[in-house]
């Protein structure tokens, strides 16, 4: 009996060992895709070792597709058209692609791997996206959970962007976080000041990037950012601009207002900013300055839970309340909407804007998921 057990055990161990060796061999040879050609827009071409994702391969060539999640397949921003050289749509792509996009061979570049020669199409403006080496020049508390961080650009030392656009901030490894991650943040700095980038970053509970910024990042640290990216910028028009933001959604609005004041754009602008209590409000002095510099500008802050000690005599309630009261008084159908904040606030504001006939193609926001 014992003899049979020993034979069975040895046999099982031998089979397992043989299977393991076969797997190693298969991985070594079958997963070796060799060198592959990547052709972009039927124009540019480069050779690369196969096996990596399309997004990381493009990044290695200093070609950066927009991405808010850093290649984890959660934001859906790194879409590009693949003309040939890739297999069927992956389960990890499906939640982020529409039926229309699937038909048009739009793929998530962070999910597909290069295993053979591949042809892709990407918009020309994406070639303007750069990777910047920066140094943290200043960190300042704006509220109890939002910090303003200034990144001085070292190489390249200038950035050209449209007010309202965002950059990807790449973390350095810290504590238990051994890998770098990247997240998208709108720039609050004016686009005519090209030597630095300012970001407003709100602490997300258990967030990898925001915890790094709030608890580990120091002035003087070297950090990499990639940008500019995004379709949130001023659309030239004479129509009134309705701005709605909350929390760190203030960032792109400040950049827009700086640009408007700098270019002396003559438009009516009403900016609704929502916060819970007085301690969640910030940049009030800056907004008062904008009201002086931009003749048609009005700032409307609203507190949803003002404390007695706040002695608040401004608007109260959810930000949608003063927004709705205002839209019903004007010819809202002609207005443009610019939104930045939590997805819940954006959704609620869009609903109010649609109720007053504002056109969806005149409402602009970066959803970031």
């Amino acid at each position, binding site marked *: 009996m014992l003899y049979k057990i020993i034979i069975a055990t040895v046999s099982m161990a031998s089979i397992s060992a043989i299977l393991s060796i076969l797997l190693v061999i298969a991985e070594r040879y079958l997963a070796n895709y060799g060198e592959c050609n990547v052709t972009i827009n039927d124009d540019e071409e480069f050779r690369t070792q196969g096996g990596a994702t399309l997004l990381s391969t493009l990044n290695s060539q200093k070609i950066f597709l927009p991405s*808010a*999640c850093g290649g*984890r*397949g*959660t*934001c859906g921003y790194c879409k590009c058209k693949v003309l040939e050289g890739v297999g069927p749509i992956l*389960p*990890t792509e*499906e*939640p*982020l692609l529409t039926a229309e996009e699937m038909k048009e061979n739009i793929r998530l570049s962070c999910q597909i791997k290069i295993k053979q020669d591949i042809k892709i199409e990407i918009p020309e403006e994406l070639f303007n996206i750069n990777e910047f080496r920066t140094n943290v020049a200043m960190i300042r508390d704006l509220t109890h959970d939002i910090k303003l961080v200034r990144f001085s650009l070292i190489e390249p030392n200038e950035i050209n962007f449209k007010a309202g656009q965002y950059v990807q901030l790449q973390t350095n490894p810290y*504590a*238990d*976080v*051994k*890998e770098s991650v990247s*997240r*998208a943040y709108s720039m609050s700095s004016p686009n005519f000041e090209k030597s630095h980038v300012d970001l407003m970053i*709100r602490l*997300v*509970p*258990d*967030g*990898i990037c925001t*915890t790094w910024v709030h608890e580990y990042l120091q002035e003087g640290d070297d950090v990499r950012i990639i940008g500019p990216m995004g379709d949130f910028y001023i659309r030239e028009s004479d129509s009134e601009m309705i701005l709605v933001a*909350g929390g760190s959604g203030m960032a792109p609005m400040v950049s827009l207002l700086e640009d408007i004041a700098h270019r002396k754009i003559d438009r009516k602008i009403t900016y609704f900013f*929502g916060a*819970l209590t007085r301690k969640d409000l910030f940049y009030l002095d800056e907004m008062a300055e904008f009201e002086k510099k931009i003749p048609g500008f009005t700032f409307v802050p609203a507190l*949803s*839970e003002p404390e007695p000690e706040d002695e608040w005599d401004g608007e109260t309630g*959810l*930000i*949608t309340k003063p927004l709705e009261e205002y839209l019903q008084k004007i010819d809202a159908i002609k207005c443009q909407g610019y939104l930045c904040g*939590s*997805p*819940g*606030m954006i959704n*609620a504001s869009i609903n109010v804007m649609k109720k007053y006939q504002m056109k969806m193609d005149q409402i602009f926001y970066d*959803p*970031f*998921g």
Partner: protein
Amino acid sequence: MKETPQEKKIYQDFRPGKLTKEGFLGSDTRHVHEIIEEDKRTLSQLGIEPETIADRMQYFIEEGKKGLESNVDLGDFTVRVNWFRGMLPCPFGEPNLHHKITAVVRNKALNQEITFTQLGVHLIGSHCFFMGHGNRFRLEPDDLVKFLKIN
């Protein structure tokens, strides 16, 4: 319990710094399977399905969303939902994505507060995973059932 190589790869995502800063296991040294099995036994003794708990938690998230980060009064409870930008994948490797939503629910009668996430609701409802001990979002199944007044 033996792990397949695929399971080993998946369970890396439970560790700190992979999907979230603290990960999902806290200071718990048990395997994910063992954590789930023990919590399943607790629920079985209570005669409650994890989906029932998840449905109740989802109700609070949906009601809380209406408050745009302010407190929403729901009678015996209040809820405040913070909805941050971005999505999180499930650490069990499913392709579905989950909004970065945190809900703080207060049970007025008990004068107690709990905090959970949208991903946490999914982990309970679909995987009966209540997080490891020591994780900031760990909820004890029996306490949670009482807190949510599910019985």
